[in-house]
């Protein structure tokens, strides 16, 4: 096919106005919405025929839409239509709140142990540097 001639390739999802790969239920709802009032519209019969074809495709033919490589994906990336982040509808992971009580006793214990180590280190250096008195 060359440029200039409109394509005749029909896309059932686009015809129904639903995302690629939508369920049969969604297709039925979309069909009902779009078909409403078409009988009185210009080209209504033709468009109804298209919609009927599209519904049949979704309901009966495209059992595994992902494997239908001849159908253009609209949307191509569903992430673009999900709630953006961050926010109420795109919550970040919830951190666990603190489960332990006050830390004062453990901290005091830790300081005592640390001071002991510091004093021991100081004493060690003192002992190593001290000379015996003259006899």
């Amino acid at each position, binding site marked *: *096919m060359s*440029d*200039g001639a*409109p*394509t005749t*390739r029909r896309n059932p999802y*686009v015809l129904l*106005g639903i995302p690629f790969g939508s369920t049969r239920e969604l297709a039925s709802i979309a069909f009902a919405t779009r078909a409403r009032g078409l009988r009185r519209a210009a080209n209504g019969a033709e468009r109804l025929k298209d919609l009927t074809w599209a519904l049949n495709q979704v309901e009966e033919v495209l059992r595994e839409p992902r*494997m239908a*490589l*001849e159908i*253009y*994906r*609209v*949307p*191509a*990336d569903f*992430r*673009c*239509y*999900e*709630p*953006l*982040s*961050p*926010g*109420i*509808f795109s*919550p970040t*992971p*919830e*951190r*666990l709140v*603190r*489960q*332990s*009580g006050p*830390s004062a006793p*453990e*901290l005091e214990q*830790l300081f*005592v*142990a*640390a*001071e*002991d*180590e*510091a004093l*021991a*280190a*100081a*004493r060690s*250096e*003192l*002992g190593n*540097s*001290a*000379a*015996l008195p003259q*006899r």
Partner: protein
Amino acid sequence: MFEYRRRLLRRKGICIAEDDSGIQLHISAGDSPVSVAAVDLGQPDSLIDVQLSPAGRLHAAALWDVNRWDKALLQRLRDEALTSISARRHFANEALSHGWYDVFDELDLTPSEKTWRRACEAAAKTNPGLLFAHLSALPARGYSDRVGLALPFITQISADPATWQPIISTWANAGIPLASEFLKALWPARLSDAKEAFLSLARFGGMAEDRIAEWGAVFASFEERLPPEPASLDCLAWRSVAVYSQGVSGKVVDKDFAAVSLLPRPLLDDLIDAGAITPLADFGQLPAQELVYVIARCDPSRLQDSDLVSLSHSAEIARRAFVDRDRSALERLSDSASGRHFANLLDVLEGLPPDPDRLSPEAYSLIQAVFDYRTLVDANEAKELPEEFLEDPSVWYLLSVPAREGRLPRLGSSLVADRFGSWMDQQRLLGLIWEQRWSDAVDLGQAVLETELESEVYSDEVASMTAYALYQCGRISDAMEVINSALEGIYTEALLVNASIIASDLEPSLAMPLLARLVREAPNEQLQAVALRRALEIWNQMPDPEFPQVLVEPLLSVLSRPCSIDDYALFARLAVLADPKRLLSLSEPAGEAAGPYRIAVARSKFRVQNDYLQADLARDMIRVYEQFGRMNWFESEWQAMLEAFRNAIFVDWGEGYGAAVFWDTVFVECPDLIDPIDRLIFLPQAGAHFAAAFAKNSTVLNEDAWRKFFYAPAEELISTSVKVDDHIRNYVALNLSKSLFIATGNFLVVSRNSLAENYNTLLGRLRWDSEHRFGIIQSMRAVLDTSNDRLAQADRSLDRLRRLPIDEEENRVRIREIEETIADWRKEIVNLRTNL
């Protein structure tokens, strides 16, 4: 001690007196002292330490040879040398250091002084146990340098308070200098109590000033609860408290996480609450019981669902259920506030109103505001979008429908308003596509693509939709250009599919590399196979029959992974065409796919290996059939192969030898694989090719071959046991007639020429070899007998030709020709036999 030399005599002597002219040497108890001039003296004997005091030297010399000396003399001389107290003290030290304890005990010193000197000696010999024993024996007062004597042993002393604390307390009580400081430095209640005492002792002990200052600073920092990190790696608690203090003061301590990983949970929680531990820390150093807890507190996204359950972390469980849109999981969490909150969020996403009793107050307030605004939009009364909506982009989702339908008012310019505007354009673009307003979609899409979009994900999506709109407008080159730009960088599988659709309409060959990419990058084998099949469909529509090189790699790649048996058979068949050598390097798949694989391998070998012949191919096919039966994939391959060998046999007689071998092999080894008509057609064909090929080497078919290739099929056809249409029977009979005629003709020509040559050779010999005349004539008769046998064989062929169920002129011509040839040869034989 010196050496005394006289003529041949050399003896050691002890110097007992000296003056300017020389010395007197004591040689032995029996000798008088001898004078030795100073000029005759050598160096003192090295046996005696010259650093000793005179008394010490005398004592050491006396010990050298105790039986030789005049003991009384030496005793007297030593006593003379010890008349002063200082000499005695000096000698006392020497006696202790040399172990002359008996002499030490006899020295004229007070007992306490002797104890002190023993204590000094114990310190010098680094023996704290002995040191303690002697220090304990000292009187309470005096000997003020006791702390100096004990200071080098401060580490050992501090470790043994039961032994040392009483005695040092006694010193302190007795006012021994620095004893109180020593006591405080050894066993303080807290570090702050020891600080001044330690610094005093450090100065007393001679520690360098800068070190004293540093220790002073360390002690002070402990008082301020912000100690520095220790120099020694052994000080684990000190190091932990240092890192902890930094962390709670606001510093991120991820790099030093090992130092705090063993702290009790409340202290870890302090650090987490202070933001000092981030998800970047190496949590692997945590003990198992704390690992899950700490990760849950710092980076819950890394936890398994089971971990969350074990921690009863319902808030994250509920969040995950919401993200997964798992309503039943949320219902199970309805007892928790998080469960109710996220369940109602899910309701809202599905179109229900927000519930103030279930949502958090902040969430309810914002969502209700969006609902109110949406009502205004639906009533066409909306104006400016409230700022609060912009701050939480996740709630924009609730405005998707009016955005797609183009019913949201535009905002002024600001960073966040621009982001909202981009989102709105993207939504509207999707709306225009669904409304099939292609030109409007192209205009909007191209305008959006010219702006700076937030991320590649969004620009790719806009490009995909714009390309689709262009494609629907028939501007396929433009569509290809737009979607190609989206394929740069990161792209999705769907984008690749879209690009391949446009490409296949623009120029099918352009779609090949895109589908090849899809095969490579598809997340599962099923989609890979589908993509490959799609590529092959497009290839089938292309005028160029050459297999696209770009598909070779994907083809082999798909064959190396599991796929359906039908796909495998199709792809393997194509791989034989595409790259038979590389197909041979593939591994055999498991299960039924092994059948198509072995066929493909056989066909590849037949294509590329010169020593793999038609018989090998036939046998490999037979083996696959015997293992798997006539499966669809086998039947399809087999029929294609038979067709190829049918065509290969209809060539000049003798040229179809290879095809004849194939048919013969299958007939002999697995006749089930050939249907009756094929057997009746291709066995005679094969036989005729063999006969023609043998004729070139002047050989003929043997009796069994005649039966197999011609007589058995002919009898089957003649017996009318083959139920076929008349025109097929006629065709089969004509084919048999032709094949039999060719084989018989070759047989007659080769046989007659060969036998004639034999006969003529014998005839020539008969002319000159009269001696063996009788034997030669017998041989000539034998040749004629053989000729008769051959003619009988030809008669049998002629008989089948005559009885074939056909009434065609071409058969009659063949019969006549064979009859004439036989008659002519037979006549010749009769004549020759008559002349013998």
